[in-house]
């Protein structure tokens, strides 16, 4: 529709340019040319009459009518001549040619040009050496020059009309011109909507448009082929992706298993110490029971058996007699038995003390085992429920967790949430706190290793860099030696005793950080100069308004 409207517009411009402009130009020229033509005709008329008068003087003066007719006949050849006449000095017409003219005033003395409407007329006196002989007059028609202008106007009008007709016909034909283009537009729209199997029809008579249609069809075919290839490739990619995912899952599972295995090994190692103690103590207790308690119990059973036998035979007198009998050393048996019973009681008292100590030791060691196992469980626990949380709040929570430990070690904790305290991240709160707490504990231990109880300072600084929240944990502790840096995030690496850690901390912390879509790395360190760890996380969306208010 737009194309046809444009064609119509161009056509109308063409009508204006080719049709109306010549018409207007014709009218303009007519208004300018006619006066010029009139003026020219006037001069011609005047010159003709003056020439006639100049030639007629001899004829009139001599009274030769033949000469007069001859002069007039010469004038008759002019196509514009309407009428010419010669009068004598009395005003009588003595010769005339043409159709006559009305309204002409003839003067015997002056030359004049008169406009008679359809003709221009001139009259001039005929003199001979100052003597008036008569007058000559002639009228020339304007018809020829008028018809010239009229023909010009007719031509301009014909051009205008022809242009108009041509435009109307062209507009009619434009439907045939535009139709294939519309077909192609509809075709391309169907292509755009995915109809790659569509084809546009074209007849050979449509020339270049048919060629264009053929090209479009070829293009659609190529697209269709390519689309099919892409779909095939996409299916293959999806299959590959599925395989890759499965492999990844497998790898993850293996890694997890390996990690679990590592952790189990480490846990077993850590548990082994207390369990060794427990085992030793239990062994000691078993030996005691077998080696020391058994004879005492035998003695006790012997005494009680002798007493019960004497009492069963003769009652209390028999028991008294039995006890009064002399023993191996000559003393009464009762003395010997009482000594033995005192010895057993003393042994049992000692044994009770020892068993109490042993049980306390066992309880303590088993507590240690529970603590170690519980610590492992807490390190590996993952809720996996990320929520939007403000970084500054999470950091404060982390600081509270280590506040007691820091105070015991006289370490100052400093939190700088600058310049964007309202920044939010999408994390599991527990895991985030675990990561930061891990870094803080490492920092506290590094300070303790360097300065003992002299204390130090740990700084947590957070800020937004590009689209990421950067949390830097900086300490002025012992730093990390160069040879340890490559091993820092290995699950099994630690420089500390089993009492202080398992070596899994940084490894797990990095894994959690990557789980948030972020990264944990050592930013800077030098032996004895402290270390800075950088935790980077993507910002979760835009900062809410209340965050700004809070910051202010």
């Amino acid at each position, binding site marked *: 529709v737009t194309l046809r409207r444009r064609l119509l517009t161009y056509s109308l411009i063409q009508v204006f340019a080719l049709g109306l402009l010549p018409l207007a130009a014709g009218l303009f020229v007519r208004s300018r040319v006619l006066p010029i033509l009139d003026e020219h005709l006037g001069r011609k008329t005047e010159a003709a009459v003056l020439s006639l008068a100049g030639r007629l003087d*001899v004829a009139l003066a*001599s009274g030769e009518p033949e000469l007069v007719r*001859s*002069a007039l006949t010469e004038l008759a050849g002019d196509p514009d001549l309407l009428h010419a006449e010669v009068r004598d000095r009395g005003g009588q017409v003595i010769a005339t040619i043409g159709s006559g003219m009305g309204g002409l005033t003839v003067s015997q003395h002056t030359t004049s040009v008169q406009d008679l409407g359809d003709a221009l007329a001139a009259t001039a006196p005929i003199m001979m*050496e100052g*003597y008036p002989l008569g007058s000559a007059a002639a009228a020339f028609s304007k018809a020829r020059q008028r018809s010239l202008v009229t023909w010009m106007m007719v031509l301009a009008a014909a051009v205008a009309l022809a242009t108009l007709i041509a435009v109307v016909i062209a507009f009619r034909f434009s439907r045939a011109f535009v139709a294939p283009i519309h077909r192609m537009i509809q075709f391309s729209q169907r292509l755009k909507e995915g109809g790659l199997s569509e084809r546009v029809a074209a007849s050979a008579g449509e020339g270049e448009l048919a060629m264009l249609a053929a090209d479009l069809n070829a293009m659609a075919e190529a697209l269709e082929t390519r689309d099919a290839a892409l779909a095939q490739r996409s299916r293959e990619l999806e299959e590959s992706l599925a395989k890759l995912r499965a492999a990844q899952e497998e790898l993850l599972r293996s890694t997890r298993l390996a990690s679990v295995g590592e952790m189990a090994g480490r846990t077993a190692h850590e548990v082994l110490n207390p369990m060794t103690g427990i085992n030793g103590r239990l062994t000691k207790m078993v030996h005691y029971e077998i080696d020391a308690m058994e004879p005492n119990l035998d003695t006790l059973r012997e005494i009680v058996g002798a007493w019960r036998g004497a009492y069963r035979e003769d009652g209390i007198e028999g028991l008294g007699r039995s006890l009064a009998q002399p023993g191996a050393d000559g003393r009464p048996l009762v003395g010997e038995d009482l000594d033995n019973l005192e010895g057993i009681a003393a042994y049992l008292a000692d044994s009770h003390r020892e068993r109490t100590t042993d049980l306390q030791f066992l309880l303590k060691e088993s507590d240690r085992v529970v603590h170690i196992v519980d610590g492992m469980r807490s390190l590996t626990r993952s809720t996996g429920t990320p929520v939007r949380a403000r970084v500054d709040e999470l950091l404060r929570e982390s600081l509270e967790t280590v506040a007691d430990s820091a105070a015991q070690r006289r370490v100052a904790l400093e939190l700088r949430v600058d310049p964007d305290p309202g920044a939010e991240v999408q994390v599991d709160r527990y895991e985030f706190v675990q990561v930061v707490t891990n870094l803080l504990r490492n920092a506290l231990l590094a300070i303790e290793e360097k300065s003992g109880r002299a204390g130090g300072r740990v700084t947590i600084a957070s800020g937004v860099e590009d689209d990421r929240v950067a949390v830097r944990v900086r300490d002025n502790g012992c730093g990390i030696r160069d040879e340890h840096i490559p091993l820092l995030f290995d699950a099994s690496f630690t420089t500390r005793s089993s009492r202080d850690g398992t070596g899994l901390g940084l490894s797990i912390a990095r894994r959690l950080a990557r789980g948030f879509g972020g990264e944990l790395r050592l930013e800077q360190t030098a032996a004895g100069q402290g270390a800075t760890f950088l935790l980077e996380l993507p910002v979760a969306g835009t900062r809410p308004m209340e965050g700004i208010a809070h910051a202010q």
Partner: protein
Amino acid sequence: MRSLLASLCLLAASAAAHADGPAPAPPSSIMIVVAANSPVDNLTVEDVRRIFTSGSLELRPLNLPPGTPERVGLDLALLRRGPDEVARYWIERKIRGQSGPPRVIPSGRLVVKIVARVPGAIGYVAEGPLPPDVKAVRVGGLPPGHPRYPFRVQRTP
């Protein structure tokens, strides 16, 4: 018209030749002609020169075409110049803004007719018979044909 004038000239020439007769005779006189009723009867040569060069209030001089024997003879008598010099003379007068030569009449016959019809017209023709309404003027008291008459036709070679 030209052919008519040419035939008139031929007629005049043959008439003049016929007037001269077969025997050699002195060139014929140039008559100064006026209307018969004109008061002018006698003119001096100087009068004629003034009339035909500067014009006159009362008289209207008529000339003959250059090269005609009458014109050559009169110019020789009045201006003492041949035909070419006479042509230059008139050109120079025109350049100076003075009046030109008198109106040229194609033939002596027409001159005679005009002199008869136009009041004050004065012309010249070769000596010959004149109609009754035209007369020849005496020059210096001498009639044409007199041996001392000053104006004679001059035939160019």
